[in-house]
C-alpha cells in the first residue's frame, strides 16, 4: 500500500501513513486554508487501509494546535477508526499532548467521549 508522507509547515501538520512500517501519525499544527482538501488524502488512505489493515493499528495524534475547522476533520478520521474497531479490527488511538496543555488534554477526552474506540492519553 502506498505510503503518505507530508512535511509539516507552520499551518499544516506532519502526516505519516506508512502501513508497512506500522506508523500512522499526525503531528504539529493544523490550520490549513482548506481543511477538507487537506485531509481528503488521509481519509482516502484510511478507507483503503481498513480493507486490509495490519494486525494491530495504532494511530498517533501529536498535535500542538488545531483550529475549529480542523477539529471536525479530526473527528472524521477518528470515526473512520471507530468503524474499523466496530468491525472487530484491533485499533488503538494514542492522543499525545504537552503536559502543560490542559486544553489539548481536554480535547482528547472529548474525542474519547464521542467515539467508541480504545483511546490512550499520553502526556509528554
Amino acid at each position, binding site marked *: 500500500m502506498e505510503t503518505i508522507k507530508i512535511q509539516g509547515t507552520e499551518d499544516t501538520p506532519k502526516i505519516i501513513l506508512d502501513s508497512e512500517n506500522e506508523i500512522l501519525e499526525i503531528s504539529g499544527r493544523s490550520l490549513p486554508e482548506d481543511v477538507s482538501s487537506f485531509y481528503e488524502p488521509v481519509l482516502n488512505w484510511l478507507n483503503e487501509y481498513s480493507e486490509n489493515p495490519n494486525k494491530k493499528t495504532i494511530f498517533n495524534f501529536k498535535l500542538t*494546535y488545531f483550529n475549529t475547522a480542523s*477539529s471536525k476533520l479530526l473527528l472524521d478520521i477518528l470515526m473512520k477508526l471507530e468503524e474499523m474497531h466496530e468491525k472487530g479490527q484491533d485499533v488503538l488511538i494514542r492522543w499525545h499532548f504537552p503536559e502543560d496543555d490542559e486544553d489539548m488534554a481536554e480535547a482528547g477526552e472529548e474525542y474519547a467521549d464521542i467515539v467508541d474506540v480504545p483511546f490512550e492519553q499520553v502526556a509528554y
Partner: protein
Amino acid sequence: MDNKKDVKGFLEFVYEFYKSMKAHEITLVYEGEITHQITKAFTSLTESNMSKEDEPNSVQRKVFHVMVECLQNISKHADDFTSNDYLFSGRGIFLVSKGENEYSVTTGNAVENDKIEYLTELLENINRMDKEELKELYKRQMKEGRLSEKGGAGLGFIDIKRKTNKELEYHFLPISDDTSFFLLTSTISRSDI
C-alpha cells in the same frame, strides 16, 4: 500650497492616530481583506512578540486560538455586498491590544441587518452557557454540523468562549438602512490560570 496644507493635516492625523493607538494599548491594527496569508502573518507576529515577552505558554496558546478563530470568522462569514464596494466579502477590521492584565482581540465587519437577530441569539445562547454546556454544544456541533462552502464549522464562537472563559462582548452599529457593523471583542487574561 493647498497640497502642503493637506499633507500637514494628514500627518497630524497620523500622529493623533498613533497617540490614540498608544492610549488604547493597540499593538496591531489592520483593515482590509482577511486572507489565509494575513492570518498566518498576524498570528506569527503576535506569537513571536509574546514569546519575546515571556508570556506564559497557556496565555500564548489562548491568544493564538482566539486570533485564528476571529480572523477566520471574518474571512469565512463576512457578507458579500455588491452595492457598496468598500464592504465586500472577507473584509473587516482587526485589532489586538495588550493591557497590563489582559490581551484583547477585536474584529469588526459589515453584516446585513437580517443577520443581526440570528447572531444575537447565537452569541447570547453561548454567553448563557456554563463550561459543561459549552463542551456538550461543541461536541454536538462537531458531530452534527457541516462545513460550510468556505470551510466554516460553526464552532468559532463556542471555542472562543471556552478558551477565554469570558462572555463574548459584541455590538452592532448601523451603517445604512440594511447593513450594520458587527463588532466583537474577546479578552484573554494574562495571568496564567
